[in-house]
């Protein structure tokens, strides 16, 4: 969507005094309760490990874990082992569940929902902390598995169109246009305030503004830390040193009460967002199921197959937690994300007429009337009415909006008369299909006005990505000329200097 259109929609939402629908369909997949793991984190100021976490399926009370002092590596590690086992079982890691990621084609699609961007970032912190940890404890492998899963979830979240790692705030923005500044829309409470805060614009603004006063991020309000938590944490540490068990357990309980309240509030907001989306009157986009299937396959390549390999005793190559350090891997990732973007557009546009309008306005298609259908040569003549000056060229591929299997190739275009000749690529109709599919030479096509959309060649783009990644020996590949990345950095983990391992060539 163009920036100007987004601005205009925001003005319309303001005019109506409430969020307005974005699109005619809900374009976010929402799994059933048992296939959703809703997770909310808290971290102590300055720390990157979680101080507490709430997780569970939306329909049941969550498991809430916290430690008295978020700086205590061992205590945090203990809670993360519990979270790890739950998450790894949820994503069907063979070591923690009776199923396997290899069953992705037959098992239900699973999702992790988090309140917003800082909670997604927490996945990266878990990856940085645990994926390659040398922390000496018996169950360190469980933490390493958590680190690698968290890293893959963090990477997956960046893939356009993915439906596995969902930020509740982003999901709401995907389905509604909110009448407030973009910077305020990262706050899940603000968005829910607009959606559920009353019947008038003033009521909704009030609710959204009040909600903003409560932190929904992984960090607590500094004032709460200063006035309530800091004295309790100090008391707990002092009691531990002095051996005052009563004081230690009392302060621990008080800290836990405060953190639990904050965690539950974030966890509930996430589930409120899910409930709002489920209650929406709009239907789900019919293209989502294909997108979910495709995403499951890609997440299996990213994480599942590696987890299985590791479980079987092999040593898989896990993605680098910092970045791609190899030009070919970077090129592969970049082109694959382009392909994912094309795929998401192609899968969703047929199910949502509002998206079709946006695609046409962006120059990705034409509105045309069928002037003639040639029975013998299977070619059609069309007269297009929109856009006035399309960028169509002979050889371009189009599909009929809402019917992606009905594909054409453009043979000629006359910009003066606004006429084009196209060749249908399907061979015959299917009267038993729902709706029935006409054959390409069927005369009833004549006179119809059609929306034709670019046929996004995402599978070709994917092939290009694999070619970019392929190792070559000649000088014809520009990536071979890229100088190896020279590191000007030094990395230390909890035990000291780390040997930096780059991506395998």
């Amino acid at each position, binding site marked *: 969507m*163009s920036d*100007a*259109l987004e*601005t*205009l929609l*925001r*003005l319309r939402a*303001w*005019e109506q005094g409430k969020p307005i629908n974005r699109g005619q369909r809900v374009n976010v997949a929402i799994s059933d309760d048992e296939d959703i793991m809703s997770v909310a984190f808290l971290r*102590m*100021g*300055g*720390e*990157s*490990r979680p101080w507490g976490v709430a997780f569970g399926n939306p329909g049941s009370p969550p498991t809430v874990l916290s430690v008295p002092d*978020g*700086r205590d*590596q061992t205590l945090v590690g203990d809670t993360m082992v519990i979270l790890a086992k739950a998450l790894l079982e949820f994503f069907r890691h063979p070591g923690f569940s009776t199923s396997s990621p290899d069953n992705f084609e037959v098992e239900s699609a699973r999702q992790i929902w988090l309140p917003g961007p800082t909670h997604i970032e927490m996945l990266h*912190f878990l990856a*940085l*902390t*645990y994926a390659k940890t040398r922390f000496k404890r018996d169950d360190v492998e469980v933490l390493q598995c958590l680190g690698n899963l968290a890293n893959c979830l*963090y990477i997956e979240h960046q893939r356009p169109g993915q439906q596995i790692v969902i930020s509740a705030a982003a999901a709401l923005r995907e389905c509604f246009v909110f009448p*407030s*500044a*973009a*910077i*305020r829309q990262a706050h899940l409470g603000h968005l829910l305030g607009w959606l559920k805060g009353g019947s008038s614009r003033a009521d909704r603004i009030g609710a959204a503004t009040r909600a903003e*006063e409560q932190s929904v991020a992984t960090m*607590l309000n*500094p*004032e709460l*830390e*200063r006035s309530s938590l*800091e004295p309790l*944490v100090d008391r707990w540490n002092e009691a531990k040193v002095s051996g005052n068990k009563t004081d230690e357990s009392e302060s621990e309980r008080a800290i836990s009460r405060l953190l639990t309240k904050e965690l539950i509030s974030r966890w509930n907001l996430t589930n409120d967002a899910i409930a709002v989306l489920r209650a929406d009157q709009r239907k789900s986009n019919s293209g989502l199921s294909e997108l979910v299937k495709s995403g499951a396959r890609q997440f299996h390549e990213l994480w599942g197959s590696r987890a299985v390999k590791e479980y079987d005793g092999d040593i898989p190559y896990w993605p*680098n*937690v*910092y*970045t*791609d350090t190899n030009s070919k891997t970077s090129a592969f990732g970049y082109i694959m994300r382009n392909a994912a973007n094309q795929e998401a557009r192609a899968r969703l546009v047929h199910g949502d007429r509002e998206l*079709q*309008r946006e695609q*046409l*306005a962006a120059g990705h298609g034409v*509105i045309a009337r069928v002037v003639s259908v040639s029975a013998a040569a299977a070619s059609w003549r069309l007269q297009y009415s*929109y*856009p006035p000056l399309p960028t169509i060229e002979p050889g371009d591929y189009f599909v009929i*909006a809402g019917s992606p299997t009905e594909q054409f190739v453009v043979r000629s275009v006359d910009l003066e008369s606004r006429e084009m000749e196209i060749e249908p690529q399907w061979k015959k109709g299917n009267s038993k299909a729902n709706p029935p599919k006409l054959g390409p030479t069927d005369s009833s096509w004549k006179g119809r*006005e*059609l*929306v034709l959309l670019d046929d996004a060649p995402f599978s070709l783009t994917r092939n290009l990505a694999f070619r970019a990644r392929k190792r070559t020996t000649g000088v014809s590949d520009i990536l071979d000329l890229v100088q190896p990345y020279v590191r*000007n*950095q*030094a*990395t*230390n*983990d*909890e035990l000291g*200097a780390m040997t930096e391992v780059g991506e395998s060539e």
Partner: protein
Amino acid sequence: MGAAARRENPDAPRAGQSPFALALGRTFEARLIDQSAELLLESLQRAGVISTTSRDFEDHRWRDNGGKLGDLDSSVEKGRLFLGDLAAGRPFNGVISSFTVRIPKGIMLPEANLIVDVLAVQTGGEIPVIAVGEIKTYPDQGGHTSRADLATARAQMGLYVHALEVTLAAQNLTNKIKVDTYGFLVLRHAGSMNPNIRAREDLRYQRERARRGFELMESSALRLNGRYGGGEDEEETDLMDLVLNASTSFQDSCVAFCERAASCYSKAMREDRGVALGDDVDKFLNGVSLSRAIELLRGQPATNAVESDLFQRMIDPLPELP
């Protein structure tokens, strides 16, 4: 701005920092320079900031910052003497913690003290080279580290480079010591208290930005004719009024850092300005008020060229589907 925000609204929340984050910052910095900065020196050597034989360390922190020097003036004096010694040929290969410089008084601006977290020094070449380093306690996320955080740290380092150049000029040492325009960041490794070093941070443009910033501040101070304060809550009322009544330019980015953002936002709402819905809406409306834009959306005729232009841009740009 915090003081101004509380003057406008005594209940305005103090942005403040987490007490745990502050404590962590102190612990992290202390750990880096513990045992003659062994950990810091080794890491900087590995990142190529200093040579592998660099072992020298000096602690210029004053008492309030956990050091041994008596007060801020002692730190400043120690820094000044160090630069003089260095220019005179003192060999030093290593780092100095909390290297403190005092930017001389401008025509109107008061003198300013700046504390460089870490100063790397190399005297093996033709003339000594000093490089600034900034310690940040947020974790190094590699390519995913917040761009805004990195930009802030680089801006800070650019300011230090400029301040060191001004200080050297004031001591007539410009040609005797070179300030490196590449600095380094000392971040934390996630989940540990050990550092990750990011070297070769290009500070040329940030230094230029700092230099220009100082010029602008000086000219602003000239216009104020000496009427400026320290930004404290108990500031004289007339000085605070100067701030409170100055025109502001509320925009999206204010929400992220300014304690007055809430009152500026309310003011934008009261004044019916598009910026209340974001920078993009403000630009789109081109000076037309929000309520007038809504009236145009609802079909009221435009009364001038600006409104006509806006009306044209508000017509649905999407095609009708068959």
